[in-house]
């Protein structure tokens, strides 16, 4: 292809955008609406996953030792946990001595703790273990129960079940929403492009009768589709950015007391992923939508 032909077809594509204002508007609006809803689903999913992840990170298993256990055995148990960490099962762990346990507890008791002369939690030294995947908690607990020197293991069944369930629901809803949105957007965009092309079927016929190659006929439509896709994805991205920043301010102001639980992602982290995905989808839909719809009319 000659460079002049490339620029000519590009120019025709751009000119066509302005010539067919209503078609352009309808296509941009359709793509923008679909990608706006997709963006919302994306933002909610990512934030929900982040909140769940944060919550999961707070769930820990507490391992208490046999009374009078030797220091060496506590270290050995520590090595076993370290081994699980190296295999990616354990995210992190920490040793809490009896003194640290009492110090922490006495802070909670406040004045009431002053009556104790000896550490009532003398046998409360423990390992706090945080898992990478809380669904593996039972597996880890049953393994640790078989380890010599461990007296008791505390775990939070309710939290694990609730979070696992919630995580499954969020994933299911997100995936369903995205699948439905894609189906709807492909249907809408295909219809919009079909209407737009059928209006210009005559133009395609004329080009073919004059001796235009398929590429020459198709290129302006494809450029047009890609530009429409680009605009259609840029608009919701800009809107979502401002809405998200405003929403973060609102949540920070009204639900500030939940800041430890509702941990939202910063805009940069969200849009670093959302911008390329949305542009790719928008431009891709524009490209393939026009490419395949024009193809139907090329056999003249």
């Amino acid at each position, binding site marked *: 292809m000659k460079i002049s032909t490339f620029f000519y077809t590009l120019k025709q594509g751009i000119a066509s955008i302005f010539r067919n204002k209503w078609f352009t508007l309808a296509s941009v609006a359709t793509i923008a609406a679909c990608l706006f809803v997709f963006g919302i689903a994306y933002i909610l999913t990512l934030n929900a996953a982040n909140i769940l992840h944060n919550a999961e990170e707070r769930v820990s298993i507490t391992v208490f030792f046999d009374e009078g256990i030797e220091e060496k055995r506590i270290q050995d148990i520590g090595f076993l946990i370290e081994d699980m960490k190296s295999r990616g099962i354990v995210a992190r762990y920490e040793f809490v001595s009896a003194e640290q346990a009492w110090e922490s507890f006495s802070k909670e008791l406040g004045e009431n703790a002053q009556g104790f002369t000896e550490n009532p939690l003398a046998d409360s030294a423990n390992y706090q273990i945080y898992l990478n995947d809380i669904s593996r908690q039972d597996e880890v607990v049953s393994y640790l129960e078989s380890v010599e020197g461990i007296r008791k293991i505390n775990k939070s069944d309710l939290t694990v079940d609730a979070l696992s369930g919630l995580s499954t629901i969020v994933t299911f809803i997100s995936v369903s929403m995205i699948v439905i949105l894609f189906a709807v957007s492909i249907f809408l965009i295909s219809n919009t492009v079909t209407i737009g092309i059928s209006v210009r079927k005559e133009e395609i016929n004329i080009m073919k009768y004059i*001796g235009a190659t398929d590429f020459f006929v198709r290129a302006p439509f494809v450029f047009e589709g890609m530009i429409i896709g680009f605009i259609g994805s840029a608009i919701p991205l800009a809107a979502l950015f401002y809405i998200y920043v405003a929403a973060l301010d609102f949540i920070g102001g009204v639900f500030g007391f939940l800041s430890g639980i509702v941990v939202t992602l910063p805009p940069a982290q969200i849009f670093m992923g959302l911008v390329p995905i949305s542009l790719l989808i928008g431009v891709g839909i524009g490209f393939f939508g026009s490419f395949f719809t024009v193809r139907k009319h090329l056999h003249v």
Partner: protein
Amino acid sequence: METKKRRTSGGKKTQDNCVIRLENVNKSYENGIPALMDINLKIEKGEFVFIVGDSGSGKSTLIKLLLRELVATSGKVEVSGYDLMNIKRNKIPMFRRKLGVVFQDFRLLKDRNVYENVAFAQRIVQVPSMDIRKNVPGILSQVGLANKYKSPIVELSGGEQQRVALARALVNKPNLLLADEPTGNLDPKSTLEIMKLLEKINEDGTTVVIVTHNREIVNDMKKRVITLKKGVIVSDEKKGGYIDED
């Protein structure tokens, strides 16, 4: 003596004095109804030919075969040296660039002006912009539209629109001009003007084939007339006239 070279396999170009050659051509539509039956036809370089017939005679099917819009069911179809029975799909644009085509409904790009419509045909064959700026005004003055090159298509009369279509068909210097009912939508004055233009184009060396059912122009011009009736050529006269159905 004229050199003759013919290579008909794979849709490749053939060379001889024949611009159109149809041998034992049959065309039936999907419903099985035959549209053309055993058509044998030769049109040589520089000829001016009318193809006439009433509705349903098969003349539209014939022109579609010549444009490679349709493929014959059997037989041999050669146009401008291309074997249209075996031409590859990607060669069809190259073949059509050898033709000039004019339709009854003009088929112009209505959202562009006169100049852009004609220049468009040159863009397709990737003529450099500098040459387009030279060629288009030249062809527009030939068809008498030099002063209307900026006019939007919708502001032109039917006759003027057909002149633009003619200019577009001729700007790439085709050796064959196919016109499908070129005067069907025109008043008698415009019809006469267009026919004079076509005659002039033919005198300049372009083979002209016109499909029409306009009795007056066929009878007035005394050119070769091929008459179709119910898919069969019923007459082929060197200086013929319109044969009535009855």
